[in-house]
């Protein structure tokens, strides 16, 4: 974790593509959001959104790694995720995202997108802290 300047926190995480390890991606998101003062409902939304972000890149893959970058600044958290495999061709292949994943992301975050970055398949989301009181 890096605190670049007051109010900005940056966290990087790299996990193998393995079903029982995706929980680490949402745990990091929840921890960061809690530290940033997000409410319980916002944290739960972010946990689910990060899960779907990862799933939208993994598809049926059972190898490779997911790299996640979390950045919290002000009232927003941005999470970028990209897939990397030993085979460059597979790293650059953007699998078709599940329709349910996209609907969940549409509903839970302020912005999200996906595409290729530096030859690797990636996806990102941005969620602002809401005024919901829980």
């Amino acid at each position, binding site marked *: 974790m890096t605190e670049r300047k007051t109010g900005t926190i940056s966290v990087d995480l790299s996990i193998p593509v393995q*079903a029982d390890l*995706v*929980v680490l991606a949402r745990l990091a998101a929840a921890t960061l959001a809690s530290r940033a003062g997000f409410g319980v409902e916002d944290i*739960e939304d972010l*946990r*689910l959104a990060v899960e779907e972000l990862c*799933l939208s890149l993994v598809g049926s893959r059972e190898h490779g790694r997911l790299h996640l970058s979390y950045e919290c600044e002000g009232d927003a958290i941005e999470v970028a995720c990209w897939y990397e495999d030993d085979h460059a061709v597979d790293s650059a292949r953007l699998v078709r995202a599940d329709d349910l994943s996209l*609907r*969940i992301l*549409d509903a839970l975050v302020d912005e999200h997108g996906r595409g290729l970055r530096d030859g690797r398949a990636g996806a990102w989301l941005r969620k602002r802290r809401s005024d919901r009181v829980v």
Partner: protein
Amino acid sequence: MDQTFTIDDEEIDGIPVVSASGEIDVATAPPLRDRLQALSSSGKPTVVVNLLGVTFLDSTALGVLVGALKRCRETGGDLPLVIDEPRILRVFEITGLTGVFSIFGSVKAAVQSVRCT
């Protein structure tokens, strides 16, 4: 918050009830899928799925439930769900699945609805 995933089976008034608890995600959805497939294969057209103890549910879990619902309906049955946690219900709402599943607030209500059909 108990995040341990468990699946329990019972029969109430002859209706199979599968109760899941904990977090249903990409890692834990497969055992639920297998359990529902096994019930379907054993000739149970309708299965009540009790999600009262579920604390997290992702699109993989939704996919498992949609697949099980399809199998049930193909054999003239149904897959009523039991949900009382607003956060879990919200996942069904935002994906448009509240109009697809029959959703009840208690196991008793779900079983009664099956017995009345």
